C-alpha cells in the first residue's frame, strides 16, 4: 500500500508545482508553466484515486487511518505532530477538492491565456491546492489551522491577483480581514479545546468527549467559538460581506476557492468536529439558525444583482447556509452531500459565467448581455444544467442534496418548522434568481454592442471541463438518490461511521439513513415515495420560482420595472444589499479608521513614540551644538579651558588629600 503510508505525497505534489512555477516560471513559456501546474495536480488526483482504492481495502477498525510524520513542536504537555488522517469524510473531501481543482486548472489554462502573470497565477493556484488538501487531511486542529490560514492567504493573493486595480486589492484585504475576525474565534476555540481535553488531536478529543462527562457549557463554548471561524471562512451572517467582493478575482478563482472548496471548509470543520457539536444542542441551534437565515437572506439579495458573478456569489453564500442548516439539524452527511453537489454545480456555474464573460469581451453586467443562446451553445447548455441542479429540479444533483437538507430540517430529530420554512422560501428564491440569470443572459434580444463585441465560443480546454462538470451536476446526486426512491442510500451509509462513531447516541447506518425520512421506515413503497419526493415542497417552490422568472423576464419584460416602481422602498433596500456594507462602514470601519488615525497614528505613534525618539535626537543635537562652541579655534579659549581643567584637578586632589589627612 504505497500511497496510504505516504499520505504526504498528495500534499507534496502541488506544493512542488507551486514552488517550481513560482521560482522559475517567470522565464518559461505558457506550455511549460501549464505542464508543471496541471501535471502536479493531475498526479495528485491520480494519487487520490490510488488512495481511495487502497482505502476501500482497509477494515473498519483501522479507521481513521493516521499517518504521523514528525513532531512539529513540544511545549510541556502541548504537543503537535504533523499528522494526516484518512477516513470516509476525508476521502469525500479529497475527491471533491482534487477533482474540481484539477478541472479548474485545465479551464484556467484557457481562461488566463491572455493575462499577464500567468506563472504567478498557477503558482498561487497550486499553493491553494496544497493548503486545501492539508486542511482536509489534517489529523489535529493545528495542522488543520495551517491549511485553514493557508487557503485564506491564497484567497487573498488570488482575489488581489490584478493588484493594480484598486477595487481588487481592496477586496483582497477585505476578505483577509473579515475572515480574520472569525479566525480569532477559531483560535480561541482551539485553545479552549486544548485546555479542556489536553490534546488537539482529533482522535484523542473524540474519544475523550465520548467517555468523559464534560460540562455542556464548555462544549457549547468550544463549538460556538469554532463555528465563529466557520462563519468567517464560509461567509455566513454577519461576516459574509467579503465573498461578493471577492468576485474581483479571476473567474476560475471564484469557481475553485469562493464556490467549490475553500468556503466549504467551515462546513467540513463543523462536520469533522461533530462529536463536540452533537453534545452541545445550543451550539447546534445557533449553527442551524445562522445557516437558515443566511440561506434566506442572501437569496433575497441575489434577486436584484445585475453582475453575473455577484448573483452567483450571493447564491454561494445562500447554499453554504443550507449546508450549515443541515449540520445544525444534525444531518451532517446531508451537509457534506450538498457540499459535494454544490462543488460540482457551482463550480460549473462560475466557469460557465467565466465563459460568458470571455465571450462578450469582459462584460459582467447581465443587463448588457442577452440572446447568447445560439452563439455559445456549449456554455448555454452546461449552465442550464447547473441551474436546473441548483434550483432543485428532480433528477439533478442539487435536488437530492437540498431535498435531504430540507427533510432533515422539517422532519429530522432536530426538526424546526421555522428553519424549514426559511429553507423552503430560500429554495424558491434560488430558483427564481438563477432562472432570471439564465433568461437575462441567454434569452431575449442582445443588449451588448453587436458591432464592437465579437461573441465566440470558448476554446476546448474551457468547454471540456464545463462538459465534465455538467455530467457531474446531473449524476453527482445519484449517490443518494436511492434514499428517496426506496433503495440503499450509498452516500449516507458511506459517511455514517464518521458521524456515528462518537455520537451521543450510537446511530446505526440504517437509522442514519432513515433519520431524514421517517415515512420510509414504515412503507417501503418506491412509487409512493417517489411521488412524495417529487410533490414535496422544494420541487414545488423550485417550479414556482422558474415560472415567476419566466413570466417576469420572458413573457412581460417590463414587469420587473413596474414592480420596482411600485415597491420602490423595498426595492432600493434589497438592491443596495440592505445597506449592510454601509452600516459596517459607519459602525466599524470608519470608527476604527478614526481611532487608528487620530489615536494610534497621530497621538501615540507621532506624538509619543516619535516624540521620544525625535526628542532624544534633538537633545543630543542641542548638546552637540553647545559643545561645538568649545572648539572655536581661538587659542586663548583653549588655554582658558586647560586652565579650568588644571584648577579643577587641583581642587579635586586637594579635596582627596584633605579627606585622606583626616
Amino acid at each position, binding site marked *: 500500500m504505497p500511497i496510504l503510508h505516504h499520505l504526504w505525497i498528495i500534499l507534496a505534489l502541488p506544493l512542488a508545482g507551486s514552488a517550481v512555477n513560482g521560482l522559475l516560471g517567470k522565464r518559461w513559456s505558457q506550455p511549460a508553466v501549464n505542464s508543471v501546474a496541471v501535471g502536479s495536480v493531475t498526479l495528485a488526483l491520480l494519487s487520490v484515486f490510488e488512495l481511495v482504492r487502497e482505502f476501500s481495502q482497509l477494515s473498519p477498525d483501522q479507521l481513521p487511518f493516521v499517518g504521523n510524520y514528525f513532531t512539529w513542536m513540544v511545549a510541556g504537555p502541548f504537543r503537535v505532530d504533523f499528522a494526516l488522517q484518512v477516513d470516509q469524510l476525508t476521502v469525500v473531501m479529497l475527491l471533491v477538492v482534487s477533482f474540481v481543482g484539477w478541472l479548474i486548472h485545465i479551464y484556467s489554462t484557457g481562461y488566463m491565456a491572455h493575462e499577464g502573470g500567468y506563472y504567478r497565477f498557477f503558482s498561487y493556484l497550486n499553493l491553494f491546492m496544497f493548503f486545501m488538501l492539508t486542511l482536509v487531511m489534517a489529523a489535529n486542529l493545528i495542522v488543520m489551522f495551517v491549511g485553514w490560514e493557508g487557503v485564506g492567504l491564497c484567497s487573498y493573493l488570488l482575489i488581489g491577483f490584478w493588484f493594480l486595480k484598486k477595487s481588487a486589492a481592496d477586496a483582497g484585504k477585505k476578505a483577509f480581514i473579515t475572515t480574520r475576525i472569525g479566525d480569532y474565534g477559531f483560535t480561541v476555540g482551539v485553545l479552549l479545546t486544548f485546555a479542556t481535553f489536553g490534546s488537539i488531536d482529533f482522535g484523542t478529543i473524540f474519544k475523550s468527549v465520548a467517555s468523559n462527562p464534560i460540562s455542556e457549557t464548555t462544549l457549547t463554548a468550544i463549538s460556538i467559538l469554532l463555528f465563529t471561524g466557520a462563519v468567517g471562512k464560509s461567509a455566513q451572517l454577519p461576516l459574509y460581506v467579503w465573498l461578493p467582493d471577492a468576485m474581483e478575482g479571476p473567474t476560475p478563482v471564484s469557481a475553485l476557492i469562493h464556490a467549490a472548496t475553500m468556503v466549504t471548509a467551515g462546513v467540513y470543520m463543523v462536520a469533522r468536529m461533530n462529536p463536540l457539536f452533537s453534545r452541545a444542542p445550543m451550539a447546534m441551534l445557533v449553527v442551524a439558525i445562522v445557516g437558515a437565515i443566511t440561506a434566506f437572506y442572501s437569496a433575497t439579495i441575489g434577486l436584484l444583482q445585475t453582475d453575473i458573478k455577484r448573483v452567483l456569489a450571493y447564491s454561494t453564500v445562500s447554499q453554504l447556509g443550507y449546508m450549515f442548516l443541515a449540520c445544525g439539524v444534525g444531518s451532517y452527511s446531508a451537509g457534506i452531500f450538498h457540499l459535494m453537489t454544490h462543488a460540482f454545480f457551482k463550480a460549473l456555474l462560475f466557469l460557465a459565467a467565466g465563459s460568458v464573460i470571455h465571450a462578450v469581451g469582459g462584460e459582467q453586467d447581465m443587463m448588457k448581455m442577452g440572446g447568447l443562446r445560439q452563439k455559445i451553445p456549449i456554455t448555454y447548455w452546461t449552465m442550464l444544467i447547473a441551474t436546473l441542479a441548483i434550483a432543485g429540479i428532480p433528477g439533478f444533483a442539487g435536488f437530492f442534496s437540498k431535498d435531504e437538507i430540507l427533510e432533515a430540517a422539517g422532519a429530522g430529530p432536530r426538526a424546526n418548522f421555522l428553519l424549514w420554512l426559511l429553507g423552503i422560501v430560500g429554495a424558491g428564491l434560488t430558483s427564481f434568481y438563477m432562472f432570471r440569470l439564465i433568461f437575462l443572459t441567454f434569452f431575449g434580444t442582445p443588449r451588448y454592442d453587436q458591432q464592437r463585441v465579437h461573441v465566440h465560443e470558448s476554446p476546448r480546454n474551457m468547454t471540456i471541463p464545463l462538459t465534465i462538470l455538467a455530467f457531474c451536476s446531473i449524476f453527482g446526486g445519484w449517490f443518494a438518490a436511492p434514499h428517496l426512491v426506496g433503495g440503499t442510500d450509498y452516500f449516507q451509509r458511506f459517511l455514517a461511521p464518521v458521524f456515528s462513531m462518537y455520537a451521543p447516541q450510537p446511530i446505526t447506518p440504517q437509522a442514519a439513513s432513515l433519520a431524514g425520512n421517517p415515512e420510509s421506515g414504515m412503507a417501503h413503497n418506491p412509487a409512493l415515495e417517489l411521488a412524495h419526493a417529487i410533490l414535496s415542497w422544494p420541487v414545488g417552490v423550485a417550479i414556482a420560482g422558474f415560472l415567476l422568472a419566466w413570466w417576469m423576464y420572458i413573457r412581460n419584460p417590463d414587469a420587473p420595472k413596474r414592480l420596482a416602481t411600485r415597491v420602490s422602498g423595498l426595492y432600493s433596500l434589497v438592491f443596495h444589499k440592505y445597506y449592510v456594507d454601509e452600516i459596517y462602514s459607519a459602525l466599524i470601519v470608519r470608527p476604527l479608521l478614526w481611532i487608528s488615525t487620530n489615536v494610534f497614528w497621530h497621538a501615540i505613534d507621532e506624538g509619543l513614540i516619535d516624540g521620544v525618539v525625535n526628542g532624544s535626537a534633538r537633545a543630543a543635537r542641542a548638546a552637540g551644538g553647545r559643545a561645538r562652541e568649545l572648539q*572655536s*579655534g581661538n587659542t586663548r579659549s583653549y588655554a582658558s579651558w586647560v586652565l579650568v581643567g588644571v584648577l579643577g584637578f587641583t581642587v579635586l586632589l586637594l579635596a582627596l588629600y584633605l579627606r585622606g589627612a583626616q
Partner: protein
Amino acid sequence: MSVVPISYYLVLSGVLFGLGVIAFVYKRNIITIFMSIELMLNAVNLAFVTFARAHDQLDGLVFVFFVIVVAAAEAAVGLAIVIMLSQNRQSLSIERINHLKL
C-alpha cells in the same frame, strides 16, 4: 646662616607660574605668549630645584636640565613657526591664528 624657608621659594614659583598663565591667556602678541610659556617653565624649574635642595636629591636637578633642553628646542621650533606665521599673515595677533579649528 639664616635659612630661607622652602615655602618662600614655592610661593615665588607659584606667583611666577600664575603670572605666566595670566599672560598666556590675556596677551595677544604671540611673542609675548611665547615668553609667558618660558616664564611658566622656569617657575616649574624653580620648584624642582627647591625640592631637590630640600630633599638633597639629584632627581629634581636632572629634571630641570631636561626642561631647559626641551624649552630650548621648543623655542627654536616655536620661533620658526612664529616667523612663518608672521610672513603669511602679516600679523602677530593670536586672534588671527585659528588654524587649529577643524
